């Protein structure tokens, strides 16, 4: 009986070992790069060498080897430390504005400009400009007046 148990245990361990996901360095960097270092300024745990960051990094590696996806790991840390731990605002609720403003400007800005400026074909004589013929006529009128001896203007 004891032997049986041992064999089952060994088998379980082996399968667990097989299930363990191979974590590539790139994947790890992606995840760790998204979590902020709690004790430093503007850095991710990936770039930081602080004790706290190293703990988080170890935790990330552990979770990844258990097969958790990036989203799940992020959710885990958000539950623990709040959305503050992420390096960008969550894409939900009020925080969505931080995402919508830039996207709106990038997409709507050019469209708006298009309607305001580009769609308008260059307009000649946007402000009343006299044609050459008009100018000639006016000049002749003035010349006639001058010949008559009066002041032109």
């Amino acid at each position, binding site marked *: 009986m004891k032997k049986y148990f041992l064999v089952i245990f060994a088998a379980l361990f082996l399968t667990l070992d097989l299930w363990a996901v191979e974590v590539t360095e*790139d994947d790890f960097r992606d995840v760790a*790069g*998204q979590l*902020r270092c709690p004790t430093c*300024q*503007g*850095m*991710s745990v990936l*770039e*930081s*060498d602080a004790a706290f960051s190293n703990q988080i990094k170890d935790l990330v590696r552990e979770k990844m080897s258990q097969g958790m996806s990036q989203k799940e790991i992020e959710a885990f840390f958000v539950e623990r430390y*709040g*959305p*503050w*731990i*992420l*390096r*960008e*605002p*969550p894409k939900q*609720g*009020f*925080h969505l*504005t*931080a995402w919508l*403003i*830039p996207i709106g*400007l*990038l997409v709507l*800005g*050019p469209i708006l*400009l298009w309607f305001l*400026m*580009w769609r*308008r*074909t*260059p*307009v*000649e*004589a*946007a*402000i009343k*400009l006299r044609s050459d013929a008009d100018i000639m006529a006016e000049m002749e009128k003035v010349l006639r007046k001058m010949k008559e001896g009066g002041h032109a203007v």
Partner: protein
Amino acid sequence: MFADYGFFLLLLCFILSIYGSIAAVVAAFGRHRRLWRSSRITLSITCGLALIASCILWHALFTHDYAIAYVFKNSSNDLPYFYRFTAFWCALEGSHLFWTLLLTIFSTVSLWSYHRDNEHIMPFVSASLQIVLAWMYYLAITYSDPFEKMGQAFTNGQGMNALLQNFYMTIHPPMLFVGYTALAIPAAYGIGALGHGDITQGWLKTVRRWTLLAWIFLTAAITLGGRWAYVELGWAGYWAWDPVENASLMPWLLATALLHCLLVQDRLGHLKRFSIILAFFAFFMSFLGTFITRSGVISSVHSFAQSPIGPNYLFFLGALLLGFCILFGVRSHSILPAETDKVWGYSKESALLMTQLLLLTSLAIVFVGTMFPIVSEAVIKQRISIQAPYFNTFAPYLGAGLVVAIAIGNLMRFQTPKIPNGRQIMTVAVAVAVPATVLLVWLGNVMQTTRLYALVAQIVGMYLISWSACCLTGDLYYRIKPFQGSLILFLRRNLAYTGAYIAHIGFLMAIFGFLGNYRTIEIKKTLNLTESASLYGYDLKFDGIKVLQEHNAKIYAAPLQVTKNGQVIGTVRPARSLYPTKPELLHEVGVFGSLWHDIYIVLADFDMKDMNRATFQIHINPTVRFVWIAVIIMCIGGIIAFGDRYRGERSRDMIAGEWNLK
């Protein structure tokens, strides 16, 4: 003893500035010439007094007058001479005085130069500058008094912040402040134009010069700040989208937009009001930047300069914004565009407007990213952080947009959809860009990139950059061609164009440099004595830790011998330094490499006892040097454009607009 005089001088400056601004306002509305002259002379006297006050502070720093709190807190007996000089701007009170001093100097210069061309608006310019100065001097004698005294006399000070004892930190703040304060003049001219009700003959020329000056200094200063972060902080990067970095980028973006807006105004007499708005907000943003640094509302690496001065800044910023909005609302309708026909449509002016849109979009993103955490905390009581990933999401699109806009905008002509030689230039550019991209990919060793999206982004980016550079060069070629080889003749009339060409090429090169961030390599390695690490074809041999004394710092250096292909090519010296003022060890990064990549080594950890075991963080940072070179090129372009005497001199306003010179 001298300190009392210092305080007294600043008080005098404050009183004089108040008189100067009142005199200027009365002169402006009463058309009183003598009063305006009096206000100008007042400002000149203020300038002299502020210079003397600054010299007193320098004197105190050099003679170790620890009776003054600022000197006590920011210097010590063992501080080298060089840093005693720079201690002036290494903390809040001193840098506030320095900012104010520079603003005073520039204001004085602006009132004595170009004043004949801008006679009608000068009183307004003088008034707006002196109102700002009065506020700054008020702060200098109340919340941020550099001459505040200690209760007792000390024989040694607490010492300067060790992080700031670096060559780049000595020139970065002055250059940044020059950029910030020079932006005050365009803003003052904008307010002057609003007050007067029209722009003046020399308005464009003057504003262009000052904006360009500010732009050159800001460009250099931002990069020097990045360079400081690169060699001093040890996180292998030069730009972290830190709030204070963003704060310096925002005025730069606005100054760049203003320069392009002035171009349209020069040629067509349009966008005058937009220029005024941009000029004001460029200065406003530089003030906001100062506020961000001072108040500590946003935590950042610059937190060494915090103080209760914050709320006062906020009050002033609000007043400034409100004042401008009211003035603009009441007066802007009298500033009319020139009667130019045939504008907009497919033309250079539209392309320039598109460029401004891109620059302002970048500004909006940087602004939202910097300010949103405060808003979010105030509105929904939830703390969030916005760091590099957020900005890096948008940066590639903005960069690509700007690269394309540079090419299109330079090829197009004002008031016409026709591009001269457009087809030839385009064909050649599209074709030449292919081998150019291949060459860049090969030289930069791009194919080693591990991630597919990063690889695609780099190749697309490099293609666009080479295409854009070819377009620019093609345009230059067809402009020089009619001069039949006489470059002097071309340059005489086209300095502004040439400067712009160089600056744009520099910008493209900088973007190319930024692309290197997609393919950085990083490893961490612990080495015992005489062991080596190999990475990227280099072998780095560890020879043990050496302890040295440099000035006032104790240095733990770990020199590594660099070998490539069996040949010794040099040594890198990553180190940690211990300053008497701080218990923790600071990073002294070791950088070595070629034009195409830096080997960047941080001494992460070492065995303090037997000194023969150390852990290194080794990074390969491609094309970082391109960024440094690119910025030098951009500044050279700016300086060349600064020398142009024609742009703005006979602008369309004078040809088409109505001028009643009184």
